[in-house]
């Protein structure tokens, strides 16, 4: 299934090329509906101009380290309780996911998490849509290898039936952006949102290859 050119000598060149291509791709992808039937991951409609497993896997490194940073992973826990803090401990008071990912009865996310960050240290960060992935689509990050996470992100059965277009759009989702506005005292993800988004789109549009591990 997976192709792995593992041509290290080519990587630097192809990275540059990929950057250039991906910018073009992004513009193109917005309106384009073309897709290739021979995409390596089935079920996914791809707006791909230039598949490049090396570039794709390389881009995913950035995607992976971002998604596995506390600001992203904490709301994509392995269990049904979100994580908290830079050490990604279980959220104090163990709020439960609930069917919609918005908590349960007296412990709904929005009971504490406001529409915006509450000022001050140790205060609940806020967003109008604050929630976990719903019970039907948990989109677990915690504990996943890069390989597993990449496969899961591309699996329409697990990603909320998102095609490439939707996945690209998701980079600008309000809650994804909230990772870069985490409230006082919390570290930012390892790259800027622009860098993340670029890597995300590159990964997707060069074939969304999953790293070997």
């Amino acid at each position, binding site marked *: 299934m997976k192709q792995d050119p593992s041509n290290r000598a080519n990587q630097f060149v192809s990275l540059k090329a990929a950057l250039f291509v991906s910018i073009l791709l992004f513009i193109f992808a917005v309106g384009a509906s073309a897709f290739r039937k021979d995409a390596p991951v089935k079920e996914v409609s791809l707006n791909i101009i230039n598949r490049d497993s090396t570039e794709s896997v390389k881009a995913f490194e950035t995607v992976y380290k971002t998604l596995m940073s506390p600001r992203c992973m904490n709301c994509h826990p392995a269990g049904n309780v979100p994580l908290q803090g830079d050490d990604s401990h279980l959220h*104090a*008071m*163990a709020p439960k996911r609930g069917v919609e990912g918005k908590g349960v009865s007296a412990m709904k996310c929005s009971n504490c998490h406001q529409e915006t960050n509450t000022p001050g240290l*140790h205060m609940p960060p806020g967003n109008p849509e604050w929630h976990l992935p719903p019970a039907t689509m948990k989109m677990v990050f915690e504990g996943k290898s890069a390989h597993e996470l990449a496969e899961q992100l591309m699996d329409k059965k697990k990603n909320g039936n998102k095609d490439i277009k939707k996945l690209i759009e998701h980079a600008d989702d309000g809650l994804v952006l909230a990772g870069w506005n985490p409230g006082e005292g919390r570290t930012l993800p390892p790259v800027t949102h622009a860098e993340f988004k670029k890597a995300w789109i590159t990964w997707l549009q060069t074939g969304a290859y999953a790293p070997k591990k």
Partner: protein
Amino acid sequence: MNNDKTALDRRSFLKASLISGGGLMLSVSWLSSFKAADKTETLNLPDQWAQLNGYILITADNKVKLICPNPEFGQNVMTSLPMIVAEELDVDWKNVTVEMGPHDEVKLGPQFTGGSNSMKMYWKPLREAGAAARQMLREAAAQTWNVPVGEVTTKAGILSHSNGKSAKYGDMASKAASVPVPKEFQLKAPKDFTIVRHSKKNVEAQKIVSGKPVFGLDYSVDGMLIAMIQHPPAFGMKLKSFDAAETLKMPGIKDVFTLKLYEDGFEQGGFDTRTFNELLVVVGKSTWEVMNARKKLIANWEAAGDLKNTIGGRNGKTEVTVPGTIESTRTQLQQMQEYAAKPAQLLRKDVDPEAAFTNAAQVIERTYNGPFLAHNCMEPMNFFAHVTDEKALLVGPLQAPGWIEPTLAKLLNLPADKIEIQMTRMGGGFGRRAYGHYLSEAALISRKVKAPVKLMYTREDDMTYGIYRPMYTATYRAALDANKNLIAFHVKGGGIPEHPIHANRFPAGAVDHYLAEGWQIPSNITIGAFRAPRSNFNAAAEQSFLDEVAEAAGKDPIEFRLELLKRAKEKPVGKNNEYDADRYAGVLELVRDKSNWNKAGNEKYNRGVAAYFCHNSYAAHVVDMVTRDGQPYVERVFSAIDCGIVINPDAATNMVQGAVVDGIGNSFYGALTHKDGVPQQSNFHNYRMIRIHEAPKSIDVHFVQNDLDPTGLGEPPFPPVFGAVANALYKMKGRRFYNQPFKEEVEKVI
């Protein structure tokens, strides 16, 4: 004996008076009735007790109002103390209302809540108060009906005679007020109790569940200002300079100023502990405005250096130097290791422990550590004060009004009778509110701004202020002979800034050769009572150690302890052993039976047992631990308690269950650590509190049934929880846990 005729001694007096609108008010006073409280615990009581007066008011319309003398912090004294009066008075509990008394120790006795003392102190005086009033009502009826007083009986507030006459207490109350105070009266036999030993519901429950303003923070008067103190960020620091320009521009802000709490040489009482002497105060109109404006303060801090405290006492003043060292948990642990290796103060020695250890077949030595703990009362420290040149009114939550009043009198230069202290219900206490610095602060602030003021600590102020349970360590050694008998026991304990050792407690008295030593390291980190601070550390360490020794001796941990207690009873070693070996063994046997210890059906549990004696009561727990979601979870607990007669069984059960939950929480999570003098925990996000999903599914509480005079329950059930948890963890993990909080150590191991 309880049912003997009781005579009032010469120094006693009763005062009866008519209340307006008709009725009897009886003030009673018995200096002799007071058992001096146990002076061996941390909460040492003042040398002088005031006289006790219990108030009983009976109105012509047959209502009975009983005054609760002691402040209420959740131990349910507002219900259980009046139950004692009502029992002997023989009234229908339904007709009783209860009011918290004002601070008036001449009329109401030593109004101190703490040290598990309320029941022990008030049992006899309150019984006598009720019985004397009943006697006077009978006398009044006998005169009215012209029958011998001996023929007048009472039942649930009704006076009757066999000739058919009957009257309600209310009908006779006014007349009773003119009856001479009886010289002799009868107390009920415990078997005849109809109120005591029968569960009565919390008299304030309805107020609590409907949100009535019963707590200190709820108290408010017109024109009241809010004050907050910005204290230094670290222990050992003080204010250098500040700029309040931005703060003063904020809406609602009235003033920003500094205030010195105690002038140099001020003679402090034993409970006048304060962490910071110079206060940077922000005063404004409302809580939020002050909170917000305080954040705009620019304050510069500097090392405070050594601090001289003048402590008053029976034998005059003593000067105590508090070192200015800026401490960190890491340096504290190092320092404790150094001190532990040095010679220490001898606290008790029986026979020849050195030789016994030298000649032992096996020596077991283990060291235990416990961190500072913050009380974290749900209601943070606060107090209302309105001080003028003539008088002072103070209202709020505190445990010991009698200890702060002399301090306020000196600070405010007012006679004690011009200082009125009203005690509200407390949102928790646990020993923290025995230290009245926050009243002194509130009073000085009110005097300065010439207005009624509510001083309020935020949660962060409260948690980082100090007055913690001390940081403790102890090294235990046990010597076994070739037959695995325990022949010698040695404990050497230390702490910052006090050591935890109770030298005359079990197993002292049960081992041939015994040695107890203590050492302490002075510190600027302030400490105080914390639900039996020394006992709760000891019960973790000693009870865990005894478990390990029992295992080395090849014995069941309960049987091992029972054998030692048998020895302590039959052939006690040494003098001054504080505990009653029979009662101690009694709780172990009861918990053994109730928990089906060593019986089939408990295989899924990792079982830990511990028992402890402190504050005059005995407690034992069996803790049943399981692994849940990869974590240790105490699913079930069995508790056995001997506190003599249980006044209000359901409320007592509640308190024991709460102590168990508190013990699990503090042993797993509790810790207040420092870095460069700065407390590393400041609110519940990083000071972990036990929550409902971590509480056991069941806590079965059993009381030893006896007719002994009651002793308290606030402290005693708490300490042995720590040891039982440690012992269950051992069963679960196959290794011992020596360092609190256990959760942290468990995580290091995993």
